[in-house]
């Protein structure tokens, strides 16, 4: 089902992930979140931007365990735990945050 943002149509897969990484922008992210009835706060953006940087560097989306560890290192211990990340992204931090970040579903995501 295509996603409509500001009059433009974006291709997505059957689970709502963006088909093309390069289609992503902040408005698209907000629209992807809105489709799940979620609103993006500053804390969400931190994680989303982190994921985009990680993907840029390694060409993969990190597994949850790796994400948690890396977030803790970058943003502080109070954020590098699954409780915090699940509060932000209740459908699973890697899965849901990757979706809003416009990344493919993470490898090893079951």
């Amino acid at each position: 089902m295509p996603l409509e943002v500001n009059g433009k149509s974006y291709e997505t897969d059957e689970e709502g992930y963006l088909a093309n990484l390069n289609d992503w922008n902040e408005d698209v992210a907000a629209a992807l979140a809105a489709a799940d009835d979620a609103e993006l706060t500053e804390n969400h953006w931190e994680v989303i931007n982190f994921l985009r940087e990680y993907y840029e560097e390694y060409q993969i989306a990190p597994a949850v365990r790796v994400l948690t560890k890396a977030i803790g290192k970058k943003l502080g211990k109070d954020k590098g735990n699954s409780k915090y990340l699940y509060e932000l992204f209740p459908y699973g931090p890697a899965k849901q945050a990757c979706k809003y970040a416009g990344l493919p579903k993470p490898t090893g995501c079951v």
Partner: protein
Amino acid sequence: MSETKKFVYMNRKAPYGTVYALESLEVVLIGAAFEQEVQLVFVDDGVYQLTKNQSTDGIGMKNFSKTYSALGDYDVNQIYIDEQSLKDRGLTMDDLQELTYEDEDDDWAEKSSMKLVNREQLAELIGNADVLLNF
């Protein structure tokens, strides 16, 4: 709790042209979630998978060589390179990207994950595997 097994992944093929290299890498990353002992071996044309400065611009495939440097984050830090295979191809360790990990038990010191092995050591590695996967 199930006991830990030693998984050895043999990587024998060039990175592009077949899907083996990428498939192997994906299986390793997925398997890492199960917290088994993982060893990666690069042998024959498989040593090309780790060469530096790969570019896939001409072949329209994703350049996944950057992904190898994420292995350390996944606690995959036993990576063995067959010395003879490098030599046969006129390569040295300097032609390969450097893969590292942070040692949790040593104040997160950055250490190399890579080790050059001879055929005898390789045979021993394979002999000690509980599970051997060939790619």
